[in-house]
């Protein structure tokens, strides 16, 4: 805990609230039929995105999955422009071309959510390669899921990163399901991180609901990467409260499972810690909630009133 200042901790708490409110709003708007396409929410996994990104600078890179809202917000993305993207508006980060599944803010080092499971990992290798070739001192973090860990590119990426000692952290959010199937369908081991020795890199499995544990584990991996000692593999055991996509009936979840997990809400757990170990007053936490909530309401209002893209731009940005 020594490494985490109160100020940093409060920033992390805010970020977790921001993600929660952002995604709750998205869920509500999706249900109302206001958001088109598919959306994949990370509610319940906020400690991962936030604990990871709190250890990074804006010059550092992250690559993300189809479940990328939290990653984008935690890396510093603007909720307004993100929400506008989910609403398919011209004011969105990608002018409504990409939507939720490709949410990105490259200016803050968030290189994009991606619809192809596994590709976040070699794309992260590429970002780390740039850092290495340019000697910029930046590091990259590649988020992925336990489902993605079965993809060939996961292996190729970890192998290359190790061979080339890249400044990279592979961060697995093992949220118990990949689409409609459980962990055991995808991984024949108790822990994805147990594969780290296969790449001669450190591997560790942590409680992904404990934002401080995520932060501290990441700090070590980032330091290692920055020092030129190569990649690490971190697996955070976490849980998605919602379905794979909004609208998913979630028949594959055992009864009561989600409720049990909700009782271990990572935000509540962090708040207990903030009160007990960081001496933060309950009122301060409530204020944070209120402010983040209203910021997200403003983002929704912004997105709702924003204009649609126009068909004359259909071929914009196909070529540079």
């Amino acid at each position, binding site marked *: 805990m020594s490494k985490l200042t109160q100020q940093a901790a409060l920033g992390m708490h805010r970020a977790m609230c921001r993600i929660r409110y952002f995604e709750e709003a998205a869920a509500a708007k999706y249900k109302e039929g206001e958001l*088109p*396409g*598919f959306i994949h929410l990370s509610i319940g996994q906020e400690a991962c995105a936030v604990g990871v990104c709190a250890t990074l600078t804006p010059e550092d890179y992250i690559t993300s999955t189809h479940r990328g809202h939290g990653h984008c917000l935690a890396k510093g993305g603007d909720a307004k422009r993100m929400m506008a993207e989910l609403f*398919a*508006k011209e004011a969105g980060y*990608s002018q*409504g*071309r*990409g*939507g939720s*599944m*490709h949410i990105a803010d490259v200016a803050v080092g968030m290189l994009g959510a*991606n*619809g*192809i*499971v*596994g590709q976040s990992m070699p794309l992260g290798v590429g970002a780390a390669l740039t850092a290495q070739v340019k000697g910029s001192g930046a590091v990259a973090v590649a988020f992925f899921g336990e*489902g*993605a860990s*079965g*993809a*060939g590119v996961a292996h190729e990426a970890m192998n290359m990163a190790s061979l080339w000692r890249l400044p990279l952290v592979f961060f697995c959010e093992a949220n118990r399901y*990949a*689409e*409609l*199937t459980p962990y055991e*369908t*995808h*991984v024949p081991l108790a822990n994805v991180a147990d594969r780290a020795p296969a790449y001669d890199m450190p591997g560790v499995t942590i409680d992904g609901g404990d934002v401080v544990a995520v932060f501290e584990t990441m700090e070590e991996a980032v330091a290692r990467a920055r020092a030129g000692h190569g990649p690490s593999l971190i697996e955070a055991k976490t849980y998605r409260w919602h379905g794979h996509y909004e609208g998913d009936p979630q*028949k*594959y979840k055992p009864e009561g499972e989600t409720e049990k997990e909700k009782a271990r809400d990572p935000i509540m757990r962090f708040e207990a810690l903030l009160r007990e170990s960081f001496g933060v007053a309950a009122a301060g936490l409530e204020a944070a909630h209120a402010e983040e909530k209203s910021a997200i309401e403003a983002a929704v209002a912004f997105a709702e009133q924003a204009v*649609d*893209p*126009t*068909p004359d*731009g*259909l*071929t914009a940005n*196909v070529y540079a």
Partner: protein
Amino acid sequence: MAKLKYYQAFNRALREELARDENVIVMGEDVGESGGIFAQTRGLHAEFGGVRVRDTPIAENGFVSAAVGAAMTGLRPVVEIGFEDFLTCCMDPLVNQAAKLRFMLGGQVTVPLTVYTFGSGGVNAGPQHSQSLGAWFAQVPGLKVVTPSTPRDVLGLFKSAIRDDNPVLCLFAKRLIGASGEVPEEGEDFTLPIGRSEVRRTGNDITIVGVSTMVRAALAAAESLAEENAIEAEVIDVMSLSPLDCDTIIASVMRTGRLCIVHEAHGPCGIGAEIIARVSEQAHDVLKAPPWRITPPFAPSPFAPVLEKAYLPSAARIGDEIRGRLA
């Protein structure tokens, strides 16, 4: 005649083939107990068990190649690739293995593999979940490719694909999953030949060839052309991209003298190009006017509904283009 939805026809076809031949197995992400993201495999795991209806990890390259290996050794694997866009992840087993093994082993093996997937756009799924990539496979000798557009065709072509001793790619359309249509009664063992196009509407003024979802758009356009402009369009559903039944198309163009092809795939080197090339090669003189293609612009599929609507060819656009040329 019974009525089924597109995904139900899919389910029935697969169930019938699993019941008919114990060498048929089903593999893919979420095809097992959960019954698939579109309910397409619902009930099959319960009926046929986990050995034959098997959830895979997310490893398209690996499990399609495994299916090729299984097909070479006596099974008839039916493999799901959830979205057509993910065919990019298993090109090698499809193109360098399944398509070539029989040839390159001098006939020592057959590869009775079926790979099916859900493609096309129209559901705001964005650039990586809306593609129509069938033309790639039409270019590869050793593969067959079908594009059923109605529940009846799903039933008939999917069953034929599973029985075919060659690798067949079945390209279903996400957007049609809930569409209803007439199919032969339960109990009837209905198949359709792979490699045959069908005339869906007759007419003497122009031939419109539609692929998958675009058959409906073409039919709607034809109705409005008939009503509003007294233009009688013949509409052909191409049904198989490979082998391509150009005879049916040429026979039609012989009468109409005019040809227009509509598909969701991009124009360059697409099936529309192939059809125009074959008609030009084989029946150049019967064309009374330049043939043409109606396709999306040369850009990825945009997420925004207002953009995707403008992006995809519509009945209105088809009608307008034809009116512009014929009226």
